[in-house]
């Protein structure tokens, strides 16, 4: 903590670098306050989410009828940029945004370990994102977010922008991960033993380890692809005489990062859910060690399963079998989390506020994605459904039903802390139900489409699939509309919402033990941790409460 202790008020440490937000324009500066950076991340990524969502609306408009509406190249651009934005510019960095805002508060520190590095990682993200978008001016990338060569070698100039953009975003992600690891390792408040660390922080630790291990491999592969496109080198393009490169090598390198990226997108989301469920169940989290440990187990196994994206490329059968085994085993720690969350809710005093609805929605939807994931791990079934709408359904149940539901849960849950104002509860509930119904209408039917024979990434399809595609498109339009109540709610309540107290949810983690929003140095006095983060029902008084509301039962011996 000593590194940042000197920063106590809004100031400019060196000329153009600012710290803390006094007025709104401080949010548009190179600012080293983790809370400003967290908000910069969340707002920027949400704007990218809206752009990616509009592209998704165009995709579903195209698929409303079997005949093509757009130029097929244009359609390929739509899903390429939709996938790239949603993964690289929304889910991964939005979760990092929560990490930025929350980790120092949750561990009782007054900033991240490396505040300037932290600001740099945000601005790199923005530059990387704009680089990808700039590709539209030069013929946008159209070879999918997976950018398999040789197709990506033949793509227009926008593909080069895409490669450079993703390299920049990956660098931003690595800088953030190192910062999180050092911060959590060295800057915890007195009394915050590892066994008292909030589960969100454990999830950030597991995620950061994955990012540090896997992202450099993607960066290396992208640089190879860039050199091949621009420098005439030959890593991936095979030649008739047996010389040249190997396109399958790209798939190994790409998925060595991009499968772990799936866990980078889900582990912090699981962390958010692990924070929300105990608060609105008024019960300790069930199996703290099991949830924290399973995050680490998922991170470890996550590095060993990339080959399940390549079951049809002609890998050796023994490789297929090993990847099948590791892919199925990773279902076990995931299941452990789900059962422990059910254990947390069970017997609690459940209050269905909007964050709780989204967190329970996460459990309900993620389990579907997890179960279809097991079927995809089985080689004989995967061979049939690989690269079909079954996979599209699966990945959206994990990334939308999972990660995005959790992001919404987090946005509502910490909205009072971040903005100092309460959101409108009824509008939040309307948002949840529209979102929940729209989501299931869109993606549940896609399982059937894939099993029946509809490949993914197609602008036209067999007319026998029209009715189900229409259903999915109508669901998608509903899902698109469901963002409106959220936007209205967020903007109106940020400006005019009821003032929030320090601890409106009566929670026990440290971020609720300071004002809403927290002061620039986070805590008026350095916090000392004397209880676990989820010791509900044990007579611990939530911050801001004067007397126990009812006679608390005698604290149980643990």
């Amino acid at each position, binding site marked *: 903590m000593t590194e940042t202790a000197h920063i106590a008020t809004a100031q400019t440490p060196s000329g153009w670098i600012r710290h803390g937000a006094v007025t709104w324009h401080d949010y548009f500066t190179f600012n080293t306050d983790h809370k400003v950076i967290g908000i910069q991340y969340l707002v920027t990524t949400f704007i990218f989410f809206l752009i990616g969502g509009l592209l998704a609306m165009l995709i579903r408009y195209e698929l409303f009828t079997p005949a093509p509406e757009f130029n097929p190249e244009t359609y390929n651009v739509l899903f390429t940029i939709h996938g790239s934005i949603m993964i690289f510019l929304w889910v991964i960095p939005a979760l990092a945004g929560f990490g930025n805002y929350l980790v120092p508060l949750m561990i009782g520190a007054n900033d991240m370990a490396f505040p300037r590095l932290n600001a740099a990682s945000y601005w790199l993200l923005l530059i990387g994102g704009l680089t990808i978008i700039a590709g539209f001016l030069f013929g946008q990338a159209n070879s999918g977010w997976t950018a398999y060569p040789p197709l990506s070698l033949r793509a227009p100039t926008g593909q080069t922008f895409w490669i450079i953009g993703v390299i920049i975003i990956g660098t931003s992600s690595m800088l953030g991960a190192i910062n999180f690891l050092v911060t959590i390792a060295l800057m915890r408040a007195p009394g915050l033993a590892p066994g008292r660390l909030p589960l969100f922080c454990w999830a950030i630790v597991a995620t950061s380890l994955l990012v540090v291990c896997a992202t450099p491999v993607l960066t290396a592969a992208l640089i190879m692809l860039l050199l091949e496109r621009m420098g005439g080198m030959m890593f991936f393009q095979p030649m008739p005489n047996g010389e040249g490169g190997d396109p399958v090598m790209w798939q190994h390198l790409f998925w060595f990062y991009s499968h772990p990226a799936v866990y980078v997108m889900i582990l912090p989301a699981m962390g958010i859910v692990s924070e929300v469920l105990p608060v609105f169940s008024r019960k300790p989290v069930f*199996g703290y060690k099991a949830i924290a440990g399973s995050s680490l187990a998922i991170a470890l196994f996550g590095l060993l399963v990339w080959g399940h994206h390549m079951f049809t490329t*002609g890998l050796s059968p023994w490789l297929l079998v090993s990847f099948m085994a590791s892919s199925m085993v990773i279902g*076990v720690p995931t299941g452990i989390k789900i059962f422990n969350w059910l*254990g947390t809710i069970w017997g609690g005093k459940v209050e269905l506020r909007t964050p709780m609805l989204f967190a329970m929605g996460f459990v309900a939807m993620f389990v579907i994605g997890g179960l279809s994931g*097991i079927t995809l791990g089985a080689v004989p079934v995967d*061979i*049939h459904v690989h*690269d079909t709408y079954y996979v599209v359904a699966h990945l959206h149940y994990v990334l939308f039903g999972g990660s995005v539901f959790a992001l919404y849960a987090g946005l509502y849950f910490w909205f009072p802390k971040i903005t100092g104002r309460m959101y409108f509860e009824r509008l939040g509930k309307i948002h949840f139900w529209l979102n929940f119904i729209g989501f299931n209408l869109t993606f549940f039917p896609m399982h059937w489409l894939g099993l029946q024979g509809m490949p993914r990434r197609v602008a036209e399809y*067999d007319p026998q699939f029209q009715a189900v595609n229409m259903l999915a498109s109508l669901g998608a339009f509903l899902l698109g509309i469901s963002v409106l109540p959220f936007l209205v709610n967020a903007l109106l309540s940020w400006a005019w919402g009821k003032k929030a107290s320090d601890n409106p949810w009566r929670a026990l983690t440290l971020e609720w033990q300071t004002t809403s929003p927290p002061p620039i140095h986070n805590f008026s006095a350095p916090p000392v941790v004397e209880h676990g983060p989820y010791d*509900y029902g044990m007579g611990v008084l939530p911050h801001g409460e004067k007397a126990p509301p009812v006679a608390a039962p005698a604290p149980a011996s643990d």
Partner: protein
Amino acid sequence: MLGAITAIIVLIGGLGVSLAVGFYILDRELRHTLRPPQPAVTPAVVTHRVAGPGAAIFALVTLFVGILVGQYVRLMPLEASSRAGQVDLLFNTMLGIAATIFLLVEGILVFSAFRFRRQKGEEGDGLPIHGSNRLEFAWTVIPALIVLWLGAYSFQIFAQMSTIPSDAMTVEVVSRQFQWEFRYPDFDITSNDLYLPQDKPIQLKITSADVIHSFWVPAFRVKQDAVPMHETETFFTANVSGKYRVVCAELCGAGHARMGLISYAIVQSQTEFDAWVAEQQAAAGQPGDPVALFAKYGCNACHTLAAANATGLVGPNLDNIGTNAGTRVSGMSAEDYIRESILNPNTFIAPQCPTGPCASPSVMPPDLGARIPESHLDTLVSFLLEQK
């Protein structure tokens, strides 16, 4: 479609039945275990009492529904190969297990949302239960055993699929943007549709001339990537006669979707297949029907041409090419322009494609000159000249 409707009805019905039964029993159970206020009850006792007969009956009901789902819900298309039945059995086994777990999780979640709802004005906390080693052990070991068993079962089916049959007929598959070409080395013929004799083991040797494609026949449950300059293989026996779509499953460019709509796997009796082979051998070397040639060389995937029943949208519309070709380059005859455009697609880029300006460089295969016999080229050029 019918399968999907059945699936939804069974799932929703199953959810309803299992929830109704489960709720009734669980709630009765809970009235005994969680009767408030009960300061005397220690957490350990509560955990064990909750997992009592009520939970067991709820689990049995979900298991029963899961078995029904696995047994009767059909989501897969027609089974037309020897491996399809096994793959579907594996899938339905997993579907049944998944349905059980799905019902258990959703049931407990929905149940908790109602049964444990905080009452208005209630301020207290729930019981401080921090976990249960017994439960952690159960929900680690039981899922681990299930996935290990599923892995072993999948491996067994995979091993059978990967066994090379002794008397297999070889067909070479060459994929390119945007066309399938099936070569029969035993008979020295090629085709755009995959003709197969019924019940004959087939070995496919698959490659690509340009980017990565993926050969997929949903009815056979067979999929194998086509990697340029590399040969992959797959084995199967088509055992139900009929006409099934050949689909490209790997994104391969602008014509990717169309590549899944232009070719078929046609399974016939051995006699019909032999007759088809003889007919193809007789036709080899003939100038050929222009419409058939237009498909044979893959023109139909990208170009619209009413006279050839082609509706491709990637490249320029050819309906009036006989007129337009003469106007594109001053001093060049329509015939020369067409011939040059077929042999060297990047010499001239047509101004307008159906949904926007044409892409440059063109995605049209540059190697057509090496593959097309002179007689076929002449037939195609004169056919295109007639399109006015």
